[in-house]
C-alpha cells in the first residue's frame, strides 16, 4: 500500500502554471485541498425571467 496520510511537498516553481498564480493554483499548492485550477465559465441563471 503506497497511499498514506502524509503529503509530499512540491516546489511550486517546478509545477506548470503554479508560479503565475493568476489562474492555475496558488503559490503554495497543498494537495487536494489546495487551490484549484480556476476555470472561466460563462454562467447565468437557467430562466432569465427568474433572475
Amino acid at each position, binding site marked *: 500500500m*503506497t497511499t498514506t496520510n502524509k503529503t509530499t511537498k*512540491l516546489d511550486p516553481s517546478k509545477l506548470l502554471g503554479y508560479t503565475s498564480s493568476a489562474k492555475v493554483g496558488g503559490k503554495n*499548492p497543498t494537495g487536494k485541498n489546495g487551490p484549484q485550477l*480556476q476555470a*472561466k*465559465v*460563462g454562467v*447565468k*441563471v437557467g430562466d432569465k425571467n427568474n433572475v
Partner: protein
Amino acid sequence: MTTPLSFYPSESIARKFDQTTRERLADSLTYLADVCSEAIELPPLELDQALDRIRTQSILPETLAAYYELVNAIQSNDFDFAESLFQEILESKPAGAALEVIPFRSPDTDRRSKRYLNQVDTDQKTPFNIFPASQDDFDRAEQLINEALDLLETESPDLFAEIKALLKRVMLGSGPTEKGLHTFDGASAPGLWGAIVLNAIEPKDAVDMAQTLAHESCHNLLFGYCIDDRLVNNSDDERHGSPLRIDPRPLDGIYHATFVLARMHYAVATIALSQELSPELKQKAQQEMEQRKIGFYDGLSTLKNHADFTHQGKALIDAAEAYMNDAVTNLPQTSA
C-alpha cells in the same frame, strides 16, 4: 519567456504559447519523475521518448489534465494513482491537426468527461451543471460549429487560424433548463489547455457560434499569456460586477470577460458583412456588435477603477481599447 502582445488574432502567438506549455510540462514531468523515483520506477527509455514527444508535438487537453491529477496524487502521497497517471501520460498520443467535437457523457462511466468536468467545475459556490446533450442538440451544435468555422475562415482568416492553433477539442454538453438553476454558455480551464466546453443548446445560429468560439478560444489565449505572468495583481477575494456574469467576480475574471468581449466584437464585425449571412443574421450581427461594445466599456470602466494591472495586462487591455475605440469610430454600418 518574452511574450509578444497583440489584441488582434495571431496564429504564431498561439503556437508559441502551445510550445511553451509543452516544454514546461515536459520539464515538470522530469521533476515529478525525480521526486517519485523511490516510489515509482518509470522505464527511462519510455519516459525520454514521451518527454521528447511532448516537447515536439501537440498534446491532447486530457493529457495536461492528467498532469494536474498527477500533481495532486503525488502531493497526497497516492503513488499507486500517480504511477497509473504517469503511465497514461507516457502512453498519450499526440493531438491531431483537426479540431474534434466530442460529447460530454456521464462522468460516472466516461473518464474523459469526468476529467473535463473536474477542470471546469472549480467554483464551489457555483456548481457547474452539465449533462449529456441529446443527439439532436449535439448534431445541431456540431453543424453550427462547422458553419461558424467556414464563415470565419472566409471572413476572418486570422481569427480562424488562431482558433485552429489554440483548440484541439470542443466538448458539447447541455446545461439545465429548469428555473433558478445556474446554466452556462461555455467554459475553459487552464488545466484543459486546447479544449473548450460548450452548452449545445445555447447558440442558435452561426453568428452566435462564431462569437462563442471566439470567446472561449480567447480564454485559452489569455491562459497562454499567464504561463509566467498575470494580468492583474488584485486578490481573488476582491469582487466586482462583471459584464458577462450575474455574480460578482474577481478582477482577473473581469479582465478576461472584458478582453473577450472585444474579441467577440471583432469576430462579429468581421462576419457582419458576409454574403453568406441572411439579412436577418446581418441585422443580428449589428445588434450583437452594439451589445459587445456596451459590455466591453462596462468592464473596462470597472478595470480602470479597480484593477492593479501587470505590465502585460495593461498593454493587452490598452490594445483592446484601441481596437474598440477605432471600431466604434470607423466600422461601416450595414443596412440589412
